[in-house]
C-alpha cells in the first residue's frame, strides 16, 4: 500500500520522460560497442574499449568518406542486457555495426538481432568456436579456444612430453580447450591420463591440484579465465607441483598480460600458446603498444585489447572495400577474405566461416628488464579454427 498515489504519479512521469530522447541520423556510420564495463569481467571491457579507441586515435575517425562514431554501452556481462542494448542501438540509434561481446552467451544473445536486422556483429573477445555459426552476420577478431589450444598439443608432443593431465574451467570455452588439446596431443602420440574440470565459481584449487600431483604427469595443460588464472598460479607453485617436475602448459588466458606482473615469481617458466603477447616484436606492435600506453596511463595492452583494435581495423578495411557502403550484406561480403597486418602479426578472415585466421605463438614467461613478459619462441603459421574445419 506503499505511497499508491505518489507511485502512480511517479510511474506516469517516468514513462513520459522516456519519450524525450531524440533520434539523430546523418552521414555517420555508428558502431555500437557493447562490453562488460562492470561486474566480474570489467577488465575485459576496459581492455577492448581501450584497444578500439587507440585504433581511432592512430587512424583518425573517417574512412571512405564516412565519419565513424563509436558508442560504448555497458551490459555488465548480463546476456539479456546485451540483447536489449543491441536492439536499441540498431533500432533507436541506427547503429550500422555492432561489436564487443566479452563472453560467449553475450555474443550468442545478439545473433538473432544481427540476422533479423542484417547488422554485422564483430566479436572482439568471446572465445567459443560455435559463435560464428549462430548468424551469417557474425565475424570475429579475437580468436577461438580450439584455434590456440591445438598448437599447445602439437608443441607438447614435439617436446618430449609423454603424459598430461588437463585442468579446465567447467564451462563452454574450457570444454573446447580440453577437447582440442587432447585430440591433437593424442594424434601426435601423447597420452592424456586425466581430465579434471574445475567449477566456474571455484574458491579453492587445493583438491584439484592434489589430484594432478597424485597423477604425476609430465605436464598439466590448463585453461582458466584470466582473473582466476593468477590465483591458480600461486597455488600451483605453493603446492610444489613445479618442483615435483610437473611442467605447466596452458592457453594464453592464464598468463594474461593485464595481470602477469602481479602474479610474481611463480609464473616464470610457464609455456603458453596464444595469438598475442605485449612483447611480440613487430614494428606494428611497437607502435600499437606505445600509443596504447600513452592513452591509458601506462596500462599494458593484452590479447583482449588487440581484439578491439583489430575489430576497428576490420571495419575500416571493409568500408574501404565497399566504398563506404555499411549495409549488412555488402559489409559481410567485403569482410570475407579480408587480410591485413595486425600488431599480433598477419591475420585474415576465412571466407567460409567468417572466423579469424592468425598465427599462434608458443611463449614462455620470462623476466625482461624488470617486467614479466610472455616471450614468443615458436610460431604456428596461419591456423584456422579447427572445430569448423573439421565440421565441414
Amino acid at each position, binding site marked *: 500500500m506503499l505511497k499508491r498515489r505518489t507511485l502512480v504519479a511517479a510511474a506516469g512521469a517516468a514513462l513520459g520522460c*522516456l519519450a524525450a530522447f531524440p533520434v539523430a541520423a546523418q552521414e555517420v556510420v555508428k558502431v555500437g560497442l557493447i562490453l562488460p564495463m562492470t561486474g566480474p569481467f570489467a577488465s575485459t571491457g576496459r581492455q577492448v574499449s581501450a584497444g578500439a579507441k587507440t585504433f581511432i586515435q592512430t587512424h583518425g575517425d573517417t574512412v571512405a568518406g564516412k565519419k565513424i562514431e563509436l558508442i560504448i554501452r555497458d551490459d555488465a556481462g548480463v546476456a539479456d542486457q546485451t540483447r536489449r542494448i543491441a536492439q536499441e542501438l540498431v*533500432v533507436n540509434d541506427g547503429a550500422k555495426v555492432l561489436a564487443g561481446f566479452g563472453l560467449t552467451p553475450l555474443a550468442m544473445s545478439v545473433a538473432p538481432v544481427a540476422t533479423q536486422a542484417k547488422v554485422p556483429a564483430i566479436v572482439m573477445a568471446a572465445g567459443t568456436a560455435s559463435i560464428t555459426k549462430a548468424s551469417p552476420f557474425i565475424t570475429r577478431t579475437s580468436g577461438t579456444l580450439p584455434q590456440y589450444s591445438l598448437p599447445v598439443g602439437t608443441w607438447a608432443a614435439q617436446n618430449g612430453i609423454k603424459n598430461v593431465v588437463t585442468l579446465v574451467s567447467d*564451462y563452454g570455452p574450457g570444454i573446447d580447450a580440453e577437447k582440442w588439446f587432447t585430440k591433437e596431443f593424442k594424434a601426435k602420440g601423447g597420452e592424456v591420463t586425466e581430465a579434471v574440470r574445475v567449477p566456474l565459481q571455484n574458491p579453492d584449487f587445493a583438491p584439484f591440484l592434489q589430484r594432478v600431483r597424485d597423477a604425476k604427469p609430465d605436464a598439466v595443460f590448463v585453461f582458466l579465465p584470466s582473473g582466476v588464472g593468477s590465483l591458480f598460479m600461486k597455488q600451483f607453485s605453493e603446492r610444489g607441483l613445479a618442483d615435483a617436475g610437473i611442467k605447466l602448459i596452458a592457453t594464453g588466458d592464464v598468463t594474461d598480460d593485464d595481470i602477469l606482473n602481479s602474479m610474481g615469481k611463480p609464473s616464470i617458466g610457464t609455456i603458453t600458446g596464444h595469438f598475442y603477447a605485449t612483447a611480440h616484436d613487430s614494428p606494428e606492435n611497437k607502435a600499437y603498444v606505445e600509443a596504447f600506453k600513452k592513452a591509458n596511463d601506462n596500462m599494458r595492452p593484452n590479447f583482449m585489447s588487440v581484439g578491439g583494435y583489430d575489430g576497428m581495423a576490420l571495419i575500416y578495411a571493409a568500408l574501404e572495400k565497399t566504398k563506404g557502403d555499411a549495409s549488412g550484406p555488402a559489409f559481410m561480403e567485403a569482410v570475407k577474405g579480408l587480410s591485413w597486418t595486425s600488431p599480433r602479426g598477419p591475420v585474415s578472415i576465412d571466407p567460409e566461416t567468417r572466423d579469424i585466421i592468425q598465427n599462434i605463438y608458443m611463449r614462455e614467461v620470462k623476466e625482461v628488464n624488470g617486467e614479466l613478459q610472455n616471450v614468443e619462441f615458436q610460431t604456428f603459421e596461419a591456423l584456422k579454427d579447427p572445430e569448423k574445419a573439421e565440421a565441414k
Partner: protein
Amino acid sequence: MSAVQQETTVTANPTADAESRATRLMKRRSRVRFYEIVIWLAAIAAYFVLPSKMLILTEIAILALFAVSLDLVLGFAGIVSLGHTAFFGFGAYIAGLLALHFIAEPVIGLIVAGILSGVLGLLTSFLILRGSDLTRLMTTLGIGLMMAELANQMAWLTGGADGLSGFSLNPVLGLFEFDLFGKTGYLYCLAVLFIGTMIMRRIAFSPFGLSLKAIKGNPMRAAMIAVPARKRIVTAYTIAAVFAGMAGALLAQTTSFVSPDVLAFHRSADVLLVLVIGGTGYLYGGIFGAVLFTLVKDWLSVVTPQYWMFYIGLILVVLVLIGRDRLARWIEYLPERFSKSKEEGR
C-alpha cells in the same frame, strides 16, 4: 439498558438492512481502484507514445509479472523467499527447449512452462513449510543455487554457461510476428501480465486469498477458525511458481535466448527490492515497483555505468531504514479519511 439492546433497536430489522449493507461493504472492498485503471491505460498508451522504448517496457512487463507472482507468496501468505528466480529460470529454460525441439508456438510454450514450473513449486513447497523465516530464506536460496548449478552442469541440454540459443518463435497465435522493434513482444507480455494479474486479483479477493492474509496476520487465530495453513501455503506457492515460470518463459520467448543468468541470485534480490519499492499485499506493488525499479536502474546505468549498484544499495538501505510500514500507514490514512467521509455522506 446495556449497549447491546440499544444497538439492536436502532437497526430495527437487523437482518434485511444489515445484510444488504454488509454485502455492499464486502463488494466495496474488492472494487476496481482508481490507480488500477490509470496504470493499465498508461501501459497501453506507452505502446503508442513510446515506440522507441518497446524493449525496456517489455522488460518492465516481465519483471512486473515476476514481482506480482512473488507478492502472492510474500505479501499475502507472508512467506519470505530468496530463491523465487528458480521458477523464473526453470520456466525460461522450458520455453526455450520447447521452442528449440518441439513446437515454436509461443502461447503453448508459455502454458507448458507455467505448468511445469508449478509442478516444481509443488515439489519444493514442502521445504518451506518447516522452520522460521531464516530457514525459509536459506532453503529457497539453496534451491535457487542448486538450480543454477544444475543448469550449468547439464550443458548438453541447457547449453551450460554459454546459454541456450538457436531457437526462434512462430508468430503469436499465428498472427503477430515477433518484430525487431519489440512491438509484438511488448503487447504479448502486457497481455500475459494483464491476464495474470487479473487472475491473481480474483484469487486475492476470494476466500482462499483472505485465508492467506489470515495466515500471515495471525497464524494461531487462523488455525482457530479452521484455516488449513499448510495446504493453503502449498497451493499459493504453487500458483506463484506457475506465474514466475510464465514470466521466465516470456523473457526466453521475446529474446529467443536463455542465458544462465536467468537463475542468478541477483534476480531474486532485485524482485524483493521491487516489492519493497512498490509495497506488498495489494499485487499492484509488483507493477509500480517494476516500473520504478527498471527506470531507476536504467537511468543509473546510463549516468554511472560503473557504479549504479552503489545507488541501488543505497535506495534499499534508506527504504528499509525509513520503514516500509510507516510509509504504508501514512498512505492508508489518506484514502481512509477520504473514503470514510464518502461513506458517511451516503
